[in-house]
């Protein structure tokens, strides 16, 4: 009796630990954040949270700083992502060839990725320092005008994008390299027979076959770039003059500097929905490319 019950429900029992983990560590915090976003609370032990309904959301959509942070987030994400995927693909193609020292090149390429982002943020901050930093030393040595980098309101996001590209392009390459190694050899052989050149082979064979992998790499990076927090906080904390304040940084400021936990939660819920929507869009796109094959 007992045994058969066990047997019948085996599939549920096996997933139970994973299910519990997801519920406790992911679903509960998200639901708690959603609930908190309907309250006004400053973490006080004396005055409890006050229910305010959707007032936090209404205030958020009227908040210019929220819209500025949204623009900054997308500016940073779109440019960084485009460069990382393009550059990552180029590096992957390069590493997919046979050459001497290939393994050393692969290892060296991975170094930025394994470094701690906050520590790397500090290093880049020193390099970007306008008066004594290495970046300006280099520019001066090349006879160029020194720049302000992180201290300039217009250069701050491009400067941060460079850090992100430096750190995370290797991950894109790594995923694409794995994808490249699984590609079948037959299409290339028949293309050779037909006399196709390297460019034609890349455009008509490699790219379409690799597309599902590219979409996966893009999706993983998209989620991470949108949520970038560590390098921005370590270098500029959203400055100068809020010009590098992304949604994540603004959420942090609202919560831990302004102590507006309800409002910060509302922002994070909106941010969560943005990330979710973009991810679903990409999945949809992936399914369509897969069907097309």
């Amino acid at each position, binding site marked *: 009796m007992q045994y058969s019950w066990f047997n019948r429900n085996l599939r549920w029992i096996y997933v139970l630990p994973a299910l519990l983990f997801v519920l406790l560590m992911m679903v509960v915090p998200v639901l708690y954040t959603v609930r908190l976003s309907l309250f006004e609370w*400053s*973490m*006080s*032990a*004396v*005055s409890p949270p006050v229910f305010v309904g959707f007032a936090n959301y209404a205030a958020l959509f009227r908040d210019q700083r929220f819209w500025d942070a949204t623009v900054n987030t997308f500016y940073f994400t779109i440019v960084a992502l485009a460069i990382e995927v393009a550059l990552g693909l180029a590096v992957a193609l390069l590493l997919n060839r046979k050459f001497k020292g290939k393994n050393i090149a692969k290892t060296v390429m991975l170094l930025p990725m394994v470094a701690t982002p906050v520590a790397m943020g500090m290093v880049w901050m020193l390099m970007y*320092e*306008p*008066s*004594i930093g290495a970046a300006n030393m280099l520019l001066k040595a090349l006879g160029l005008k*020194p720049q*302000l980098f*992180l*201290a*300039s*309101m217009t250069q701050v996001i491009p400067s941060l994008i460079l850090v992100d590209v430096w750190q995370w392009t290797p991950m894109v390459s790594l995923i694409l390299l794995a994808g490249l190694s699984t590609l079948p050899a037959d299409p290339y052989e028949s293309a050779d027979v037909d006399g196709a050149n390297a460019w034609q082979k890349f455009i008509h064979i490699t790219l379409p076959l690799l597309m599902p992998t590219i979409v996966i790499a893009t999706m993983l990076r998209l989620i991470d770039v949108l949520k970038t927090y560590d390098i921005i906080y370590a270098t*500029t*904390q959203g*400055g*100068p*003059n*809020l010009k590098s304040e992304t949604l994540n940084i603004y959420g942090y*400021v609202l919560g*831990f*500097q*302004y*102590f*507006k936990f309800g409002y910060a939660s509302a922002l994070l819920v909106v941010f969560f929905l943005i990330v979710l929507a973009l991810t679903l869009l990409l999945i949809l796109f992936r399914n369509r490319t897969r069907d097309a094959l």
Partner: protein
Amino acid sequence: MRTHGFVKLAAVVATAVSLAACSGAGGNGGAGAPQDGAASAPGSDKPLAGTELVLVTANHPWSEALTPLLPEFEQATGIKVKVENYFEDQLTQKLTVQFTAGSATPDVFMYRPLQEGRLFFKNGWVTPLNDYVNQNADYDFADFSQSAVGTTTVDGKIAGIPIVTEREILYYRKDLLEAAGIEAPKTIDDLIAAAKQLHDPSREMYGFVARGQRSPLVTQLSSFIFSEGGDFITDGKASIHTPEAVKAMTTYGTLLKEAGPPGVLNMAWPQAFGVFAQGKAAFLTDADSLYTNLTDPQKSTVSDKVGFAVFPAGSAGSKPFNITSWGLAINERSEKKEAAWAFIEWATGKDIVLKQQQKGNPGARSSVWDNPEGVKAFPDELVPVIRESMELGVGHDRPLVISVGEARDAVGEVVMRVITGEGDIQAAANRANELLQAVIDKDNK
């Protein structure tokens, strides 16, 4: 209820004893800690022996100087002190999270009275110390400077004991001023003229440097506002749109814009002091407590050329801030308040404050400032400047509200406009004033 309390007490004692045993077995360097004393019976001259206190400190010269002195306290009382050390921002987060969770630890913590003091107090996280400070006549609480205690007092309750005080002063390069035949500026107008005269960007020499980051600059701006006769809040109303405040914010921003180094928008105190320490700036206004960053030959290329002056006078005279930047407080939920107070009484007593000042940490006790031994560590020229600033000083350096972060950002925005040259300053000040008023109104709700 009683059983519950007893179980708790037993657990505490057991933990303390086993911890003491552990540290004995671990061979903790034998710093002279009374490892056997920990288990001594109550009723002796060490009634609190065996208690273990958790002390959370900021990564600050004050805690660095205190740590080697702790065995002295542990030996005298039998109390064990466990120290946890954090950087400023992490400290606030750590405390906020623990207090929100209703944690009984830390027992004693270091905090910034003006930054978090009101929030912590109004949230019921700190123990009012009014009944404690006069328990022991030898402690001599009246010895603490009035404005320093004023900083740590909220609604008439003493929320914490001042440990580090600071004032805004003017740092200048003696050699440059001498070469140009300029006296140390006595007024803000003199400062502007001198900074512009010494400003020579082509040689990477800048007239004036100070914090230019939106929120960090607000405290250093305060002395400019006070010296023009303004304040952030006047009689409970936001007043940063007044002609006095607008003039001060324009002066501060213009100095940085027209006589400051490149990249000033990204400067908090470490960057500003860095520029001065590399010999690239003639003037710097910031807190006196940070002077070693300029006079220590390890950190500064101009260590022997630094001059100190009282904050220059504006139209209302010289009114630098004179505040308690760090205080010690007791967690309201601590189960060891007696021991916690014993610790604070020791750490802020005359002996330790003297030792702290000998290490260069300016305290709040008048008797120590009057003691020649107490000022020995400070440069001779700095001592009269500190003394005079203490007399002239104002007891706050930022808006006195609960949501300090939000208020600071509002004020800083106006200076940002001056530095970047965007738009109408008065209009920006009016807008910032509304934001500040909203923060004040929220406090009073």
